[in-house]
């Protein structure tokens, strides 16, 4: 039974956001007997109500609050008010995510040491190592039911994977399989196995893909220690004269403001909303925003070096049938500067339905070059590139100087420009992806530009020294002891891997730390 907490109960831990970070942290704390209130800006939509229709689902789930963009990225031109394709609903972006669950590589925690200083990049080593995270990665993989871990079988390959694998073999890639996916290949943990429906991005209507919506959250609620309050959009974090946070102000469905008191506040609103909230919580004591003595809040925005390659064949592929992303090549994920860039990238199968293919294949494209590609939709195969991008201080989430949201708070402006290393990596990946499909008979192939960001990282980064970043190795802000960051915005660097597994891993580890500190009475 979900526990309702009083607004004036200042003993609770308040978590802002219910996705991979917030939803996991909430359950972990509740399991330890700690009282938790999760405030979620979106509504609660159970998985039966998800929609197998791209645009309808987008309207149901996507975060569509007003945002602006800037910088040199093509998203600014093609989707000026949609920097990110993320979710506003209970479960956050774990409703939409594809399920790829990869551990970071050891060197990806030590970028500055491994790559050295790179002009224009704000590189830093994480204050933690792979060894620190390994036991927590193991817990996360078990919790999420990641295939190819814990004795769980891999998913079967769909048509899109078979084309991808045939090309990988032709190119001599060694590490190609249906991936480590938090999608049940068979019934597990009370959830059924994948039915190869497609529409992973629209929310899994079977519950086969892990999402906090129907795993962590109901498990936490069952303890009687966790309350999830949907349609509760936090606009400000409050603090006392000593500089400790005391609660949060949120707007309900009708826009009415409430203040929920708290012993501890954990921010997990994704890498755009989390820094925005810290910046919007400025006060006379913290004129530059909360936890911003370093000036790094909102800076170093990363979104992975992405892109897609689609290719047309003589005969049908029907790539949209089955799991959207169960296919990976890891050979290019290594750090091998002889390719002309530092860091590496993964190639992962991907498909879009006809409506989204029209919108994303070549945004802004028209005429027969574009439509003849669309005419061959059933004969298309597709893959996604996800590689490490360079943190750059000027790539940032900032408060818009004029525009305000429906609650009167400045909206976020997301500015991004590729680093030369990002461009070199993307071009290499395009070339390899196109060569892969040509090796199995592609007639035409298309280097498709990045979509609005799904991997939003780095805007409250973790650092050893308080002057270099926003949080310490526990995700605790350097400046305020009872204020934590619990999402991907803590990432010091992005790695080549899809970030969700690492976000969940950090949340499990953070829960241990918070429980320990609470027991010791230090926060």
């Amino acid at each position, binding site marked *: 039974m979900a526990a309702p907490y009083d607004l004036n109960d200042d003993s609770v831990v308040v978590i802002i956001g219910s996705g991979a970070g917030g939803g996991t942290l909430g359950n972990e704390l509740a399991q330890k007997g700690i009282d938790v209130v999760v405030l979620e800006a979106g509504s609660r939509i159970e998985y039966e109500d998800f929609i*197998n229709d791209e645009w309808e689902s987008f309207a149901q789930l996507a975060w569509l609050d007003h945002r602006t963009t800037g910088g040199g990225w093509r998203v600014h031109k093609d989707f000026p008010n949609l920097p990110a394709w993320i979710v506003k609903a209970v479960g956050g972006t774990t409703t939409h995510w594809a399920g790829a669950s990869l551990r970071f590589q050891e060197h990806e925690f030590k970028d500055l040491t491994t790559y050295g200083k790179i002009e224009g990049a704000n590189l830093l080593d994480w204050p933690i190592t792979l060894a620190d995270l390994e036991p927590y990665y193991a817990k996360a993989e078990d919790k999420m039911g990641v295939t190819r871990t814990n004795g769980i079988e891999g998913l079967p390959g769909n048509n899109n994977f078979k084309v991808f694998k045939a090309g990988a073999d032709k190119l001599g890639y060694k590490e190609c399989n249906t991936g480590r996916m938090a999608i049940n290949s068979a019934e597990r943990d009370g959830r059924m196995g994948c039915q190869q*429906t497609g529409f992973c991005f629209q929310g899994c209507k079977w519950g086969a893909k892990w999402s906090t919506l129907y795993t962590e959250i109901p498990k936490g609620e069952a303890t009687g220690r966790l309350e999830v309050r949907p349609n509760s959009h936090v606009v400000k974090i409050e603090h006392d004269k000593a500089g400790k946070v005391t609660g949060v102000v949120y707007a309900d469905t009708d826009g009415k403001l409430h203040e929920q008191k708290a012993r501890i506040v954990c921010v997990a609103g994704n890498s755009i909303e989390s820094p925005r909230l810290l910046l919007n919580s400025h006060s006379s004591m913290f004129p530059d925003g909360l936890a911003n003595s370093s000036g790094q809040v909102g800076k170093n925005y990363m979104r992975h070096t992405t892109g897609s390659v689609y290719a047309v064949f003589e005969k049908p592929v029907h790539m949209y*049938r089955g799991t959207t992303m169960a296919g990976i090549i890891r050979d290019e994920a290594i750090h091998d500067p002889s390719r002309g860039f530092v860091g590496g990238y993964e190639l992962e199968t991907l498909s879009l339905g006809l409506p989204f293919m029209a919108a994303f294949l070549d945004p802004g494209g028209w005429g027969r070059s574009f439509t003849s590609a669309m005419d061959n939709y059933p004969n298309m195969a597709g893959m996604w590139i996800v590689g490490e991008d360079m943190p750059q201080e000027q790539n940032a989430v900032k408060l818009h100087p004029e525009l305000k949201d429906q609650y009167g708070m400045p909206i976020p402006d997301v500015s991004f420009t590729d680093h030369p290393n990002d461009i070199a990596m993307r071009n290499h990946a395009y070339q390899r992806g196109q060569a892969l499909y040509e090796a199995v008979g592609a007639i035409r192939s298309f280097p498709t530009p990045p979509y609005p960001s799904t991997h939003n990282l780095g805007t409250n980064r973790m650092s050893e020294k308080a002057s270099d970043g926003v949080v310490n190795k526990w995700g605790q802000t350097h400046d305020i002891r009872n204020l934590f960051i619990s999402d991907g915005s803590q990432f010091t660097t992005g790695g080549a891997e899809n970030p969700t597994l690492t976000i969940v891993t950090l949340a499990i580890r953070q829960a241990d730390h918070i429980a320990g500190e609470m027991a010791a009475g230090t926060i």
Partner: protein
Amino acid sequence: MAMVHENRRGISRRELLKRGTIGAALIISGRAVISPRDAWGLETTALKPETTATLIVLARDIYPHDQLADRFYAIAVKGQDAKAAEDPAHRTLIEDGIADLDRRAGSGGYRGLGWEDDRVAILRDIETTPFFQAVRGDLVVSLYNQKEIWPIFGYEGESYSKGGYIDRGFNDIQWL
């Protein structure tokens, strides 16, 4: 703008000639654009029917699919009339944009240019204008999101109600 409706009564050849044809197959009657060949009509409220007729040709020039009938393009541009009815600025944007196309096309107007290439050459000159961007940006959703056209493109749409593809060919590729 009314829904595209079937024009069951049809129109006599004499009537058709009296009203004059537009493009190859569309005619204008009162506030409606009519396709006698395919028996449908589209009533307009805010935009001139001539403007809507040109929008239909323009829509096909932007996303030319020879296997799609005109009615799919007519449905796709319906939203422009609805938006024009709500927003005078949008109405002006569309009317002025179409008038500009006609001006650039010369005496016969945009629809009077027989070759797609000639019309596309004009569009290449105006593709960065707010008018073109507004039409194209709406069209990429309003055309490709019509469920009726999905089978024509070989896209099967919703699959949950059929139990997904686990027993329906998710891995049936044979030609590799």
